[in-house]
C-alpha cells in the first residue's frame, strides 16, 4: 500500500479530498501467502471430499454421464475412472499440496527467524497453481486419460503450470532459508527435501509429456513411469510434509520441546533414503528386473522405521500433557495423524509382500489404504497445522470451537470406518477373484462394504465443510490479537 507523496495527510482541510491510496493488486504482507494457501486448501478439502463421495457412489451405481460439447467432437464425460482421477488430483494437488505450501511458508520464517522472501511471488504462485489445477480437472472430464495413473493424467501443459508454481514456492523458501539450513529445525529439512521432490516429479512429468508430444512412447513405458510418479509423490512430498508438520505442531500444541533432536534427525535420514526407493515397488512388470521391484518392496516395508521413530519421539514429547489430546485443538488432530501414519505405513508394508499384492492388488483394499493414508495420516496433520497457523497468520484470538471439534472427529470417524469397510471389501473381492467369480457376482458381494464406505466418507465431507466454516468464522468474527512477528528476534521466534 503506498500513499501519494505530494499530499501531506496532516494538512488536509475538511473540504479537501483525501489522498488516494493505491493498493498493490498482489498482496505482499508477510503472512498473506500462508493465508492464501490455507484458504485455498480449505476450499479444496471440501471439493475433494465431495468428489470422493461421488467416486464411491459411481462404484456402487456404475453409471456414466456423457454429453457432447459441440466443439472439435469433444464430449464431457463423467465415469468411474475420470471421477476417481479427479478425486485423487483434488486430494493430492488441491487439498494436501495447498496445505503443504501453507505449512512451509508459515513454518520457514518462524523456524529460521528470517522474513519470507518474495511474498508477492508466492501469491502469484498460489493463483497459478489453483487455476491450473482447476483447468486440469476440467481437462480430465474431456480428454483421453491414456495409460496414466491419476497424478499424471492431466495434460502436460497443466502439469507444467503446476511445476512452474512449485518452482516459485521452492525458490522463495530456499532464498528465505539461505545459509541457515544447517542449523535449522528438522521440520525445515523435511520440508526442503519434500518440496524439491515435488518440484522434481512435476518437472519430470511435464518433460516426459512434452517429449511424448513429439515422439510417441509406447503405452507400457509411459504406464510404468506414471506408476512410479504415483508412488513417489505421496512418499516424498506428502509423507515428508506430514513429518515436517507433525514435528512442528506437536511440541507447540503441548508446550514441550521435542523429546529428541537426534531421533528426529534419524527419522529424517531414514525417510530420505527409503522414500524414493519405495517408489520402485510400483514397477512390477516382467520387463523390469525383479530385484528392482524387490528393492522397492523392502524400502516400503522399512518405511515403518521412520514412522516408528516419529511415533516414539512425538509421544515422548506429549508426556504429562495427555489431557490436551482429548480436546478439539491441533494437538488431538496431530496425535491421531501420527497413529494413522503408523497404521497406514504398516499396511503399505504388508501390501508390498508379493502374495498379499497378488491377492488384494487392484481391489477396494487399495482404495481403503489410500483413504487411511491421505485422509487419515496426511489430512489430520494438515488440519493440525491449519488450526495452529490460521489464527496466527490472521492475527486472531482463537480457541477451539464446536466446529473445529466437529471437523476433527467427523474426519477421524469417517476415515476409520470408510478405510476399514473398503479394505474388508477388498479382501472379499480378492477372494471372489481367486475363485473366478463372475464380475456381477463380485459387485453384488462387495456392495455392502461400499455402501458403508459411502456413508462414512460422507462424514469426511461434512468434516471438510465444518473446517471451511470454522476458518470462515475465525476470519470474520474472531477478536484481533497480536502474535510474535517472525523475523523480529530469535527469542520471539522460539516462543511462537
Amino acid at each position, binding site marked *: 500500500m503506498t500513499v501519494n507523496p505530494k499530499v501531506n495527510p496532516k494538512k488536509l482541510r475538511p473540504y479537501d479530498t483525501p489522498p488516494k491510496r493505491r493498493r498493490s493488486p498482489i498482496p505482499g504482507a508477510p503472512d498473506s501467502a500462508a493465508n492464501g494457501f490455507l484458504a485455498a486448501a480449505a476450499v479444496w478439502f471440501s471439493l475433494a471430499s465431495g468428489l470422493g463421495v461421488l467416486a464411491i457412489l459411481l462404484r456402487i451405481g456404475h453409471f456414466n454421464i456423457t454429453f457432447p460439447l459441440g466443439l472439435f467432437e469433444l464430449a464431457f464425460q463423467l465415469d468411474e475412472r475420470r471421477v476417481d482421477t479427479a478425486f485423487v488430483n483434488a486430494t493430492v494437488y488441491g487439498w494436501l499440496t495447498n496445505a503443504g505450501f501453507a505449512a512451509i511458508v508459515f513454518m520457514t520464517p518462524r523456524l529460521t527467524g528470517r522474513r519470507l522472501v518474495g511474498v508477492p511471488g508466492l501469491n502469484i504462485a498460489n493463483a497459478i497453481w489453483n487455476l491450473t489445477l482447476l483447468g486440469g480437472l476440467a481437462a480430465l472430464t474431456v480428454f483421453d486419460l491414456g495409460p496414466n495413473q491419476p497424478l499424471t493424467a492431466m495434460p502436460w501443459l497443466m502439469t507444467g503450470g503446476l511445476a512452474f508454481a512449485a518452482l516459485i514456492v521452492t525458490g522463495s523458501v530456499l532464498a528465505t532459508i539461505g545459509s541457515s539450513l544447517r542449523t535449522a529445525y528438522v521440520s525445515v529439512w523435511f520440508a526442503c527435501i519434500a518440496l524439491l521432490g515435488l518440484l522434481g516429479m512435476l518437472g519430470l512429468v511435464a518433460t516426459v509429456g512434452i517429449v511424448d508430444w513429439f515422439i510417441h512412447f509406447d*503405452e507400457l513405458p509411459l504406464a510404468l513411469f506414471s506408476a512410479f510418479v504415483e508412488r513417489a509423490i505421496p512418499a516424498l512430498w506428502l509423507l515428508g510434509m506430514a513429518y515436517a508438520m507433525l514435528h512442528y505442531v506437536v511440541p507447540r500444541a503441548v508446550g514441550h520441546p521435542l523429546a529428541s533432536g537426534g531421533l528426529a534427525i534419524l527419522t529424517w535420514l531414514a525417510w530420505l533414503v527409503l522414500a524414493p526407493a519405495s517408489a520402485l515397488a510400483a514397477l512390477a*512388470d516382467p520387463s523390469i528386473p525383479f530385484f528392482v521391484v524387490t528393492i522397492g518392496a523392502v524400502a516400503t516395508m522399512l518405511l515403518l522405521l521412520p514412522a516408528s521413530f516419529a511415533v516414539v519421539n512425538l509421544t515422548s514429547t506429549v508426556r504429562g500433557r495427555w489431557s490436551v489430546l482429548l480436546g478439539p485443538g491441533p494437538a488431538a488432530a496431530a496425535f491421531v495423524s501420527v497413529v494413522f501414519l503408523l497404521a497406514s505405513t504398516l499396511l503399505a508394508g504388508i501390501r508390498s509382500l508379493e502374495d498379499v499384492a497378488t491377492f488384494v492388488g487392484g481391489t477396494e483394499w487399495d482404495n481403503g489404504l489410500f483413504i487411511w493414508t491421505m485422509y487419515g495420516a496426511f489430512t489430520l496433520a494438515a488440519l493440525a497445522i491449519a488450526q495452529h497457523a490460521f489464527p496466527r497468520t490472521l492475527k486472531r484470538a482463537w480457541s477451539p470451537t464446536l466446529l473445529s471439534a466437529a471437523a476433527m472427529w467427523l474426519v477421524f470417524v469417517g476415515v476409520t470406518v470408510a478405510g476399514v469397510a473398503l479394505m474388508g471389501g477388498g479382501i472379499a473381492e480378492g477372494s471372489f477373484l481367486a475363485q473366478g467369480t463372475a464380475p456381477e457376482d463380485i459387485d453384488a458381494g462387495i456392495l455392502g462394504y461400499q455402501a458403508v464406505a459411502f456413508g462414512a466418507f460422507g462424514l469426511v465431507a461434512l468434516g471438510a465443510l465444518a473446517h471451511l466454516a470454522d476458518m470462515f468464522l475465525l476470519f470474520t468474527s474472531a477478536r484481533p490479537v497480536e502474535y510474535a512477528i517472525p523475523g523480529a528476534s530469535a527469542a520471539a521466534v522460539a516462543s511462537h
Partner: protein
Amino acid sequence: MRLPAWAVGLTVFALLVGGVYFASNLAGESPPFAIPGASGPAPGPSGGADPAVGEALISQATPPCTSCHGPDLAGSGNFPSLHGVAEGPKSENLQDLAAANPDTWIHLWIDGTTPETEGIDRGGMPMFGEQFTPEQIDSIVAYLETLP
C-alpha cells in the same frame, strides 16, 4: 545432538532383516503390469480366462476333477487323461462333439447342461455347468489347455 542407541540398533536390525528379505527374493518374475484404461490382458486360447483360477477351481469342484482323473490329471482306471486335450478329445464318445464344435467342445463337455451334449454318454462325468459359471469353466479350460 545425540542419536539414541536403541534407535540406531533398531535401524541396523531392520536393515539386516530387509537385506535378508532382499537376498531371498532376488529371483522371480512380476505379473504383467495392468495398464490403466487398457481392455485387460491379451486373451489366451480361452478368451480372458485365467489358468491359475482354473487350477484352483479343479480342486474346488464337487467331486474334485483329481478324484477321477488322477492326482496329476494323467488318467486313472476308466477315466481318461486330461493332458493334451488342446489337441483334441481322446474318448470315442466325444469325437462328434469336437468335430461339430472344434473351439468350444471342452467347455461344452465340462458344462454338460447345453443342448450340444444331450444324448452323449457322460460315463459318470458330472455336469459342472450346475456348479460353475461360464467364466469359471473358461478358466478351467484355460488351465487344461496348458497341460502338455
